[in-house]
């Protein structure tokens, strides 16, 4: 049959391409881990492996500025993830279920505007705003600075899921006498949870990686890893940066493994239908297709 023959050749090619992409994606990660053991020259990183050493790991740990910045990045990212998920979920639901059309349209316009605004513009306007408003910079102004973009991301993902919600279940709950809040918690929320999780993960990543907004909004006590790294570019980075990255990777992979195992165990228990991947859960199709039908 024509289909079958075509299929195996195409499958092979697609598979090969995907493998190449994965290699491409992991090449720098492998490089980071390998070169975290590089001796370097005069304490700076080199392009060739000059010798094996483990000294960068304790040195990275002892580099209080670096460690502090990683900690701040992490704390800010967690706070941003939570804030963006809460506000983004509300936005996502309101975009579909909001009673007033004006409200829905305004929010939708705002969400798209948030995606359009280049980061540098957002960064500078926030700094100007804080200066004029007399707000002194710190942890919360930074978290607030990361929030607009991440709220938009979460809102878009959640909205597409709200659109696909099963209204029959909600009606049944209402028939059985459940109030608005109860219905939300027991019926809507569990279906939204995977979309919220996906949004939270993306929000965390954006915040952790953010350079431009953070550059403008950090202070002596609240400064992030990308800001630190950007400063090392001028004088050359030390391998301790790779050591910290390797440690972060190890931490992330461990957390992910644990989370994945927990999720699979939970999913197996509740017997949920798994569509969009085993991790992100049922019904996140359309996660990045903004717009309500």
């Amino acid at each position, binding site marked *: 049959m024509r289909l079958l023959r075509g299929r195996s050749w195409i499958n092979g090619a697609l598979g090969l391409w995907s493998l190449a992409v994965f290699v491409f994606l992991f090449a720098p990660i492998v490089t980071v881990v390998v070169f975290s053991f590089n001796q370097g020259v*005069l304490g700076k990183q*080199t392009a060739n492996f000059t010798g094996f050493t483990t000294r960068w790991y304790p040195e990275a740990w002892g580099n*209080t500025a670096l460690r502090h910045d990683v900690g701040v990045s992490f704390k800010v990212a967690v706070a941003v993830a939570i804030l963006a998920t809460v506000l983004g979920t509300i936005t996502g639901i309101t975009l579909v279920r909001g009673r007033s059309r004006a409200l829905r349209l305004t929010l939708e316009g705002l969400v798209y505007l948030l995606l359009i605004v280049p980061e540098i513009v957002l960064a500078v306007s926030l700094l100007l705003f804080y200066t004029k408003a007399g707000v*002194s910079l710190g942890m919360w102004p930074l978290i607030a600075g990361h929030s607009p973009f991440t709220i938009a991301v979460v809102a878009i993902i959640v909205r597409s899921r709200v659109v696909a919600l099963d209204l029959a279940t909600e009606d049944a709950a209402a028939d059985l006498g459940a109030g608005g809040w109860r219905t939300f918690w027991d019926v809507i929320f569990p279906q939204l949870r995977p979309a919220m999780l996906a949004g939270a993960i993306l929000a965390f990543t954006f915040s952790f990686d953010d350079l431009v907004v953070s550059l403008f909004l950090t202070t002596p006590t609240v400064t992030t890893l990308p800001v630190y790294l950007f400063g*090392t570019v*001028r004088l050359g980075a030390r391998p301790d940066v790779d050591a910290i990255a390797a440690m972060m990777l190890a931490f992330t992979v461990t957390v992910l493994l644990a989370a994945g195992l927990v999720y699979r165990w939970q999913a197996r228990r509740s017997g949920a239908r798994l569509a969009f991947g085993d991790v992100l859960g049922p019904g996140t199709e359309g996660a990045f297709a903004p717009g309500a039908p």
Partner: protein
Amino acid sequence: MEPTDFAVTVVKGRRVGRREFLTAGAAGAGALLLAACGGSSTSTSTAKASSHAGLAKGGTLNLWTWPDYYAPANLKAFQAKTGTKLNIATYDSNDTAFAKLNTAGGASFDIVVPTSDFVPVMAQHGLLQKLDHSRIPLQYVDPKLLRKVFDPHNDYSIPKDYGTIGVIYNPAVVKHPIRTWQDYLDAGAQPGVSGKVELADVPDETLGIALWAEGKDWNTDNLADLRHAAEVMKAFAKHVHAFNEFDVSGVTSGAVVMAVVTQGTAREMMLQKKSLKFVIPQPQSELWVDNYCITAKAPDVNQAYSFIDYMLQPAHQLKDCAFIGYPTALPNLQSKLPASVPLRNEIFISPADFNRLVPHVIHPAIQGTVENLYSEIQAAAA
């Protein structure tokens, strides 16, 4: 002994608060502290107790600086000795430091470490406070770095380390001898060298090359001169491989055969490729000095003086020099630096060369034009 335990005391018949007590009594208290805490590594500091503030105990210090700019041993020892909590925030450029100091972001920094050209700009905008020289051990600062054009009375800044820019090149490929900046421009156009040349990613240094080549003052604010210099560099741009003053792998691998770098970077490159040569071209080049400054609104002034005092001590300056690879402000540093430091002589600038070096001065009125001219040069290289 804990000076801060005395909340209020009576001095000269007048009640003074905690801060004043610390300031007035610090000289004596400092000496006692040093002795009580096992002494510092140099005995001269206790002997000269009257001319420097000594170390304040406790509190926090917010340091706003370049990353990796202090020997870790020094920072650890400072925190251990004084109990001061050190918060270090870093910036990637003087522009960022200035921009943030000038806005809401500037409120809580204590010490900022700007390069010399930004000291007058920051001072004029009221971002720095005048320094009390009686609290600073100036005997550990080389006089040749003091009273420079960017801060004639050192009202606002104390030198930390310094350097210059010059040309590093591979003499086997760059046959044209590099003695002047014009030589650099000429050599860059030669076949075999063209396309393998790097410029520093700094607007004033790039325009400066053309100005120096024509024997002009690189601190000119004459727009015609600057535009002409930009045209020269735009014509040169097609030979440029990258705007990067730290391309160690590029130069040592041979992909780049000539680059404009600081002497510290040149040293790193020469360590990996012995055949490279570094020269500070005639007639002039830049003197940049990174300085300790205290911000106008610094909340922890005592800790700031304490830190500067500590870091200026000779033993600590030696450690810093070895760590960052640039000469710190200690007098006669070259003779004091241990021989074990690799290529130690390349860290320093000869007296003859030093006298030809001119610090950069920023003219706020034309800075926008300078930046645009540099962008045009960058665009011309693409």
